[in-house]
């Protein structure tokens, strides 16, 4: 189980970094999304991997198996923020494509923008 999670985080993160380093702005956006998925998986696994355990302490106290609820709350926050940021960067990339006439992230600015 653990090697599977670790390997999938690694694969997703490396795909994200690869896409991030490309020139087309949409590839960069997908790269950012993949990178944030990998981060969320890491964050989630920081509560330790448990299967079928309740996120609360039962009557038998801390000796029982339980899932740490805090990383789940953190991941939820991170997903919400990441979603908003991805939406924003998509819009910026679209505007850049429209106003620069090219989806290259380093597209030259044709004429000087107004001061």
């Amino acid at each position, binding site marked *: 189980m653990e090697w599977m999670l670790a390997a999938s985080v690694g694969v997703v993160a490396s795909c994200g970094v690869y896409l991030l380093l490309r020139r087309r702005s949409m590839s960069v956006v997908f790269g950012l999304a993949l990178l944030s998925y990998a981060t969320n998986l890491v*964050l989630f696994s920081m509560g330790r991997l448990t299967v079928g355990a309740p996120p609360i302490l039962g009557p038998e106290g801390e000796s029982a198996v339980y899932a740490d609820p805090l990383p789940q709350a*953190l991941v939820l926050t991170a997903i919400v923020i990441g979603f908003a940021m991805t939406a924003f960067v998509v819009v910026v990339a679209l505007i850049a494509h429209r106003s620069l006439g090219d989806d290259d992230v380093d597209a030259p600015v044709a004429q000087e923008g107004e001061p």
Partner: protein
Amino acid sequence: MNHLPVCMVLLPMFTAVMCLWLGEATRSPFTQRWTGLLGMSLLLGLSVWMLSLSADGQVFVYRLGNWPAPFAITLVVDRLSATMVALTVVLALVVLLAAWGGDDTRGPYFHPLVHLQVMGLCGAFMTGDLFNLFVFFEILLIASYALLVYGGGPARVRATLHYVVLNLVGSALFLLSVGLLYGTLGTLNMADMAAKVATATSADVPLIRAAAGLLLVVFGLKAAIVPMSLWLPSTYEAATTPVSAFFAIMTKVGIYGIIRVFIPLFGPEQPGVGGVAEPWVGGLGLVTLLVGTLGTLAATDLKNTVSFLIVVSVGLQAISLGQFTEAGLAAAIFYIVHSTFLTAGLFLMAGAIIHQRGELGGRLSAGPVVHQGRALAVLFLIAAMSVVGLPPLSGFISKALILSATPSEMRPAVWGIILSTSFLLLVQLARVGSVLFWNVLAREPKGCPPGPNASLGPAIFLMSASLLIALFAGPIDAFTREAAASVYDRETMIERVLRSRSDSKAPNGLSEGGDARVRRPGEEDTP
């Protein structure tokens, strides 16, 4: 419990919503301006009150929802936090007024965005929780993305795309390190972390060090320390003038993060995990200073020159902070206060000059006679003297403090670089000034909008702060020394923040220490 700290976050949010609502309802810039001004003035009053309270040595520990300390979020306000909040609010007020000249009507949402960014900045400067710091970083960043693209145009859109992508990568790394630190230490409260770092098992130490290194990268990116500083000049150059001026506080957030995390949490004297930042910050600060100076020398545009001066100021802060001594930190805080006003004033002044030169803009070549030339030239002289560090202005005092705080074994290198870059800056700023004000052609500027420039008054106000800081350098220096001492006083801070664990009961009858990894053996938890 004093509710002042949380008001510093809630009031700007409320004002932003009011600006949005009233702006939409009345569709006039007038309503937005006055609502924004009213809200920001109120916030200024509160922040000055908070600063005066914390100057007496009071440390606010605000527990949201009144949960006991390592659970839920804690806001901690000491002298440094209160200073940074007050700096932010003063700067925001000046920027709002500077935008009244017409920059705030280029798009519909200038005022709400500034207030949202103030909310994020105040929160980031006050929070005592690492994940909450991440959330406030995101709030201030998303407001800054929108402010950067504010005004439109291809150059701004391109700069925004780069800035957004870089900062999203930074956010991913931030989240990663927060996750690693929670996984190893079992807490996110910074005071609790500082206490638990010392007892980390040897298997966890490499992970904690890796997470700390990631955090250093993230804060370095925000602070624009070389090699993560290449985004800064083009970004600040592209932004609208009041926005660039407001962004003068943005690099300070990164420096503040380094102060808060790498002194109490991963400070040099922490066993095992200490010493992550020490080899890097000071040395990279020297490189940043050199790169900034060379960039200033190579710049062919006024706004580009000023942007590189921000890199120079970041370098000086990192050098001073990177000594990791109390005196170094005090000098860094003094420099932060000085350079926030100065660099913001420089941007507003550059905006005023560019405005007067018509379609020539900020290019450093022979141009038409600058209107209001005498006022602007005097202002430029004061600014240049303060940047270079000539007496009697605040630049001189802050640089002298940094030089005197340097430990004697590092003096040859640090003094040599700081003094020689100051000389190079003097040469370049003399060149810029003579091109702008003396190398003039006897013709009227083309495409120059008539009327006085709105950013001139705010620029004069910010520059006069340089004089005031120099006049009251004694008290300010004493204050920054106290602020630095309280940052270094880890034990008192831990005791203050976590004190409630024994004296207040958790709500709903829950016992403390629900998580096995949060609890250490020997703590007085009730079962």
